[in-house]
């Protein structure tokens, strides 16, 4: 029983880590909630910054939805720290980052911006 008690936390931790890796590996896009998005002329810097990222594909910026979404290339990812730095260096404040199975095209359709 002692052995089981010792193994249980390790097993749970391994499962959580595995689930995390799986989510990351399966993610097809990043979806960021961003504060300060009010001007298209200024927000173009966000698109240009993500276009320089090797793992980034199509980029969507929506002022109305306070949203930035970026397609991830197959098997690639951009860490939360990198995303936060990219957006901070572009002059904006990141409020939240989510990984999604939806592509930017899907998100565009969801927002009615096809």
């Amino acid at each position, binding site marked *: 029983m002692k052995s089981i008690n010792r193994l249980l936390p390790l097993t749970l931790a391994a499962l959580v880590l595995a689930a995390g890796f799986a989510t990351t590996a399966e993610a097809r896009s990043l979806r960021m909630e961003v504060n300060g998005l*009010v001007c298209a002329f200024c927000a*173009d810097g966000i*698109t240009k*910054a993500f276009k320089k990222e090797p793992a980034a594909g199509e980029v969507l910026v929506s002022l109305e939805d306070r949203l930035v979404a970026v397609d991830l290339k197959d098997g690639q990812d951009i860490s939360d720290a990198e995303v936060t730095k990219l957006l901070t260096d*572009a002059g904006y404040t990141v409020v939240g980052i989510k990984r999604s199975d939806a592509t930017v095209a899907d998100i565009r359709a969801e927002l009615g911006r096809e």
Partner: protein
Amino acid sequence: MNVYVTRALQALALFALSLPILARPVTYAGGHMFMADYGPDMNALSYAYSPSFRWSASVGALRVDELARSGRLELEYVRTSRLLHRWNLPSAQANAFGWVGLGNARTDSGSGLGRHVGVQLDYETTRIYTSFVSELHEGGGYSNRFDTAAIGWAPYAHDVDRVATWIVLKGQRSSGAIDDSVKPMAVLRLFTTRWWLEVGADGDGRPVANLMLNL
């Protein structure tokens, strides 16, 4: 002080004020911006580069006819601008900018050096814009202060895939070497992520225009 130098400094001050009021003195990191101004008194071209969203360096040139009736006036300047603070709010943004600049003015009779400092406070949503700009221009015995308040309204909330439309009104108070006065101006502004166009008129009904390109 040479009368042409004085006029050149006045023109430099006026030029700085002719910059579009919604335009920020600093663009995004790695951003290049070209700008052309047309007005009843002057024509101008400038270029700005921002290594970071926190500061920019710019160079520019302009020609003024009205202030140099006895000879064409040409100006070149360098300027550095800094974002002092930015407040990123859920659906709004506010900024505090500051800048310093030096200019070289040439007329038929010689050249002179002028300097200017300024601050800008602004608050913007996708529908409303307000700003206040204060600048001090000096050179030799010349000194003049300009305070400009502006308010803009967008009839619809624009997004990056639509052309933005704004109606902007501003009032500009001048005090010092140039006659004390308050001048109104109204412009229609259209812009996308790459270009920015303004057309309008000053208080005397004279046309003004501005074009900017984001590269």
